[in-house]
């Protein structure tokens, strides 16, 4: 049993990182994740680590690249506009197969958007920046999960030499809950035989290059395809009362907490509602959705705080075998940035559909 | 009497002529239209007797084509 404290989701990023032995943070101020940067600024020097506030998100992503490429765990955190700025470098990570953990505490987009919660970076996180690469994308919905998923992101990122993206939102980031600080052991990892640690007269040189200069393009792309197929075995999801459900809610992040309430409320009224919550947005739990869609009379309601992003992946999984509906940002209870998709509204939609 | 000599690797040489231009003893030159298999005009050590083995041609060569030798002088017998 680890130490139990009271923390908010943003602080849990820090606790997760140090639990994973990560002592280096490179970041930049942006709402709503400033508590992350500030946590690292005060905690890392105490632990012999280094905190660097860089000059832009593009630069801090490159600092992360240098540090991770040298075989040392490092992390950064950002939100929408900063996330956009990092994309060129993140594509470089993918090409060079350098691991790295990036936390995106989503805010309303596009553009400068709002400084409050949203889920407008789902497609960007799962499809990546230019070049069409794939990354591990994890979707925590609690303070504990942020701490645990940051650690899982380090593990999977290094296991497969891909990016490990933790996609949360401002509500999960700023809510406070009990947190058990514990190092999670996910298994052994291969030695970093590619890391630029200096030759020391003991080994030949290592060159990390973000492009097809040494390996031919098609060979490299074919290897990526094999890697992405292997990564399908890392699918994780949570299924709440899905087996006998006639309507399955599909949600991640804060809307998934809302939908947990909706399942309870609906069941109290005798409605057979369940929730399928992807924990890995990539690889996406397509198989379990496809299987459920094959049951007669099943319907899906995708609840996400955007104009329709995860619904694309649900539709690809369901392949037309069952109706797939959407409840998005326009269902918020207020027209401002602080509006939320609340349980009553979701239940109202459930009743229309079931 | 030559104090040194150079070799020019024709597979690396790209005919830029810096060795010709910067040799303090003017002993490297483009002779005729001597061409390498890569299609570059390549120079030769045209006046080997004047080579001092100073190696300026070596480190001014951008293409890693030159090796430089110094002849070991016989000790003077007393």
């Amino acid at each position, binding site marked *: 049993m680890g130490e139990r404290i009271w923390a908010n989701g943003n602080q849990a990023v820090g606790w997760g990182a140090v639990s994973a032995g990560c002592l280096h943070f490179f970041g930049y101020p942006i709402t709503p994740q400033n508590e992350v940067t500030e946590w690292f600024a005060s905690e890392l020097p105490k632990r012999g680590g280094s905190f660097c506030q860089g000059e832009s998100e593009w630069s801090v992503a490159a600092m992360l690249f240098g540090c991770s*490429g040298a075989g040392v765990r490092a992390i950064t955190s950002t939100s929408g506009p900063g996330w956009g700025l990092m994309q060129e470098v993140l594509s470089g990570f993918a090409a060079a197969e350098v691991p790295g953990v990036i936390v995106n505490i989503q805010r309303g987009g596009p553009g400068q958007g709002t400084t409050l919660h949203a889920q407008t970076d789902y497609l960007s996180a799962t499809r990546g920046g230019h070049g069409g690469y794939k990354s591990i994308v994890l979707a925590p919905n609690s303070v504990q999960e942020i701490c645990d998923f940051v650690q899982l992101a380090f593990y999977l990122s290094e296991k497969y030499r891909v990016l490990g993206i933790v996609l949360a939102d401002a509500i999960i980031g700023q809510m406070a809950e009990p947190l058990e600080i514990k190092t999670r052991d996910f298994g052994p990892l291969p030695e970093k035989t590619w890391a630029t640690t200096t030759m020391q007269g003991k080994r030949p040189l290592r*060159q990390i290059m973000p492009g097809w200069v040494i390996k031919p393009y098609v060979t490299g792309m074919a290897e990526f395809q094999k890697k992405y197929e292997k990564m399908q075995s890392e699918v994780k999801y949570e299924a709440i009362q899905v087996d006998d459900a006639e309507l399955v809610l599909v949600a991640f992040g804060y809307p998934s907490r809302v939908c947990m309430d909706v399942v309870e409320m609906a069941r109290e009224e005798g409605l057979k509602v369940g929730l399928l919550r992807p924990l890995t947005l990539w690889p996406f739990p397509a198989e379990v959705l496809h299987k459920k869609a094959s049951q007669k009379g099943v319907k899906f309601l995708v609840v996400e705080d955007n104009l329709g992003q995860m619904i694309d992946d649900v539709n690809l999984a369901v392949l037309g075998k069952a109706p797939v509906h959407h409840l998005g940002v326009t269902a918020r209870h207020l027209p401002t940035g602080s509006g939320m998709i609340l349980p009553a509204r979701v239940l109202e939609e459930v009743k229309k559909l079931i | 009497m030559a104090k040194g000599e150079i070799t020019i690797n024709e597979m690396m040489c790209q005919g830029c002529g810096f060795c010709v231009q910067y040799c303090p003893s003017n002993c490297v030159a483009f002779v005729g239209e001597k061409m390498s298999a890569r299609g570059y005009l390549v120079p030769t050590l045209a006046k080997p007797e004047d080579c001092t083995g100073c190696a300026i041609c070596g480190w001014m060569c951008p*293409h890693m084509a030159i090796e430089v030798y110094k002849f070991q002088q016989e000790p003077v017998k007393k």
Partner: protein
Amino acid sequence: MNKEKVYSLPKYRIAYPGLLCPGCGHGIMANLMAIVLEEMDLGEKTVHVGGMGCTGYVTFTLKVDSTSVTHGTGPAIATGIKRGLNGKPFVFTYQGDGDAIAIGAGALVNAAARGEKITVIMANNANYGTTGGQMAPTTLIGQKTTTTPLGRDPELHGYPQRAAELIAQIEGTCYSARGSTHNPANVTKTKKMLKAAFQKQLDGEGFSFLEVLTACPTDWKKTPAESQKWIEEVMMPVYPLGEFKNISRKK
């Protein structure tokens, strides 16, 4: 008569043929960097950060651990490596002028401001060479490039950027200088500057910067010999050589 080899491929260079154009100044700098790494016993302790462009080809031919990610990020990558490995490795970049002072200006200026204990080397050849010869921050007034076909006009294209002087202004910089590769005497002077810049990092003084004038015969549309002359006659009046800052805070 016995002969002794006095110069051959430097220990820290790899002989890949044909990566640079004939007479390319980067080739001379690559020799110099490899020779200085050997003379200062740094090769085994180095992580080198390459630039994006022809400077990247130089990185290929250096026999040390190296990395790069995107155009302009060199000083930021170097920051990550130096801090991640707790200040132990020797970290230096070799970047082009566009890489360092156009797209990478933010990274360069801020790495200097933070006094990062790294060394940045910027090759100034007054254009973007790899992509066919477009205007760079260092293109001279009146110089014709593919994006200034009528010659650089300050009204339309602004003025040339003097990186060494700019970086010397920054408090975190402890060394900033400009050298040239247009003849052996200047290459020898540049070698001294390179050693001075590297020594600042070894002494833990702070950020060191060296700008070097290098020929780009292909895009200048000149012969190698004409290019070296152009550096001396046309570039040097705009980009004077010398040390602009050389301070020690520790001694």
